[in-house]
């Protein structure tokens, strides 16, 4: 499986990372090096083997569905690059 520039551009788009066109060939090369390394996994017989979901044999804990904290709007917004009137502010989303 070889990654070309248009696939690299598509992956960058999916990851929401802007990559200039000029940087795409080098990025595609790096992907191919890494994926070439990963291809070794095809040598392993995984027939009938379950994909691991949890490394320790434990059930994820559940807790009672109740409010345990809240009323911290100022703290939640304290690190926002742009917060106004108690909200996170972003560029216009709706056309």
């Amino acid at each position: 499986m070889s990654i070309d520039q248009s696939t690299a551009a598509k992956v960058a788009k999916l990851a929401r990372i802007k990559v200039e066109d000029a940087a795409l060939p080098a990025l595609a090369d790096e992907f191919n090096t890494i994926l070439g390394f990963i291809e070794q996994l095809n040598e392993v017989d995984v027939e009938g083997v379950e994909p691991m979901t949890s490394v320790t044999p434990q059930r994820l804990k559940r807790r009672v569905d109740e409010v345990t904290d809240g009323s911290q709007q100022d703290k939640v917004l304290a690190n926002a690059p742009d917060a106004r009137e108690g909200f996170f502010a972003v560029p216009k989303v709706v056309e």
Partner: protein
Amino acid sequence: MSDLNKLGLAEARDALRKGDTTSVELTEACLKAIDAADALNAFVHKTPEIAMDRAKAADVRIKAGEAPSMCGLPVGIKDLFCTKGVPSQAASGILEGFKPEYESTVSQKLADAGSVMLGKLNMDEFAMGSSNETSVYGNAVSPWRRGNDDAQLTPGGSSGGSASAVAADLCLAATGTDTGGSIRQPAAFTGTVGIKPTYGRCSRWGIVAFASSLDQAGPMTKSVRDAAIMLEAMCGYDLKDSTSAELAVPDFEAMLTGDIRGKKIGIPKEYRMDGMPGEIEKLWSDGAEMLKAAGAEIVDISLPHTKYALPAYYVIAPAEASSNLARYDGVRYGQRAALEAGDGITEMYEKTRAEGFGHEVQRRVMVGTYVLSAGFYDAYYNRARRVRTLIKKDFEDVFAAGVDAILTPATPSAAFGLGEMTDADPVQMYLNDVFTVTVNLAGLPGIAVPAGLDGQGLPLGLQLIGKPWDEGDLLNTAYALENAAGFVAKPQQWW
């Protein structure tokens, strides 16, 4: 007492309790050492006011005879841990200016145990790296040098600042985190001790997430005893991390008897890599001899899927990272890129992440995005998770056959020079974790113990791998190895 910063945790604790020194004196000695060591670039956010406040409070408690286990002991905290009101940016530009409104469970536990936070430590960006060269703060530098050669060496990564700071006696101990070897590799490179506990021993709450199914916090210290003391303070069940284990935390220090008679130590043949330097091979066989001389039984074992651990890791870890790092979008915290007129929210995301993430982080996020994307999920991600099941089974089979611990080299070489790997392809750098990454995939505890010096005078470490939840026994075997190896070398101060 002089050179208080050179003490380990156990020695300093005992001195404090005897009244031979005070936490204020210890803390002042460390702060002075930190200010004189800017050349190492280990501490990237210094917190002297917090340190002195906590030291004074600790001295009051010690006087009152109610000192908890780490009362008054000055430590450094890796930048990956969220610390309330103190910059916590995972060495990334995207979190510049971020000051958490909360404290990570592990750093809170250390504070509750009375320890004194000196500041935040350098690391690879989002813990992605093996040389501390991907940090937005610049490289952390090892205090070690090759003889009289003044070339700067890597302290390893990703917990490079922690390793450098402990090795250079800027603090008594430090926290690290380990996703594929990020505690054990830097410990081995700097002649220090580092343990990654069983997955679930330490709460991950408040630690910036890299690959959630692999990440674990652990201590980086000057001795195995210190590792036992600090690990005990760090671990324990936490409601806020659903994967943290509801198990009692043993008194690890009390388990350090040094008696390993009758223990079965496995030597895995698959760890004998082609092109392994003779010095590493000799260190490994010397280590096995030492454990044998201490009464352990050495047995040859096989972990047949070892070769596939690194490729499986480089599917699973980037996949989880691409998901975890989706939160850095320029909305809730950290940096947002400057936008041009007409830019919408997608441009904001794309520009923010292109500016805020460094090259290695971008690469891993995109590899992760690719292996999770439609059409490739089964071929890459699910296959890697199946291989992970097999890797874990390799260990289970060996432990079921009566093996108590496994001895391996910690790294394939001694520390390399900063910049020496710049032109290598990314896979060459990834090979640093070849002996450590299996342990994360299997969720096991692993510890790096300094065991010797190479021909250029650089430290080399051995790794011991233990059974799940058996850190106490693992620490005891490491203690026996430490006693036998008698590693006492320290870097010559040049900084």
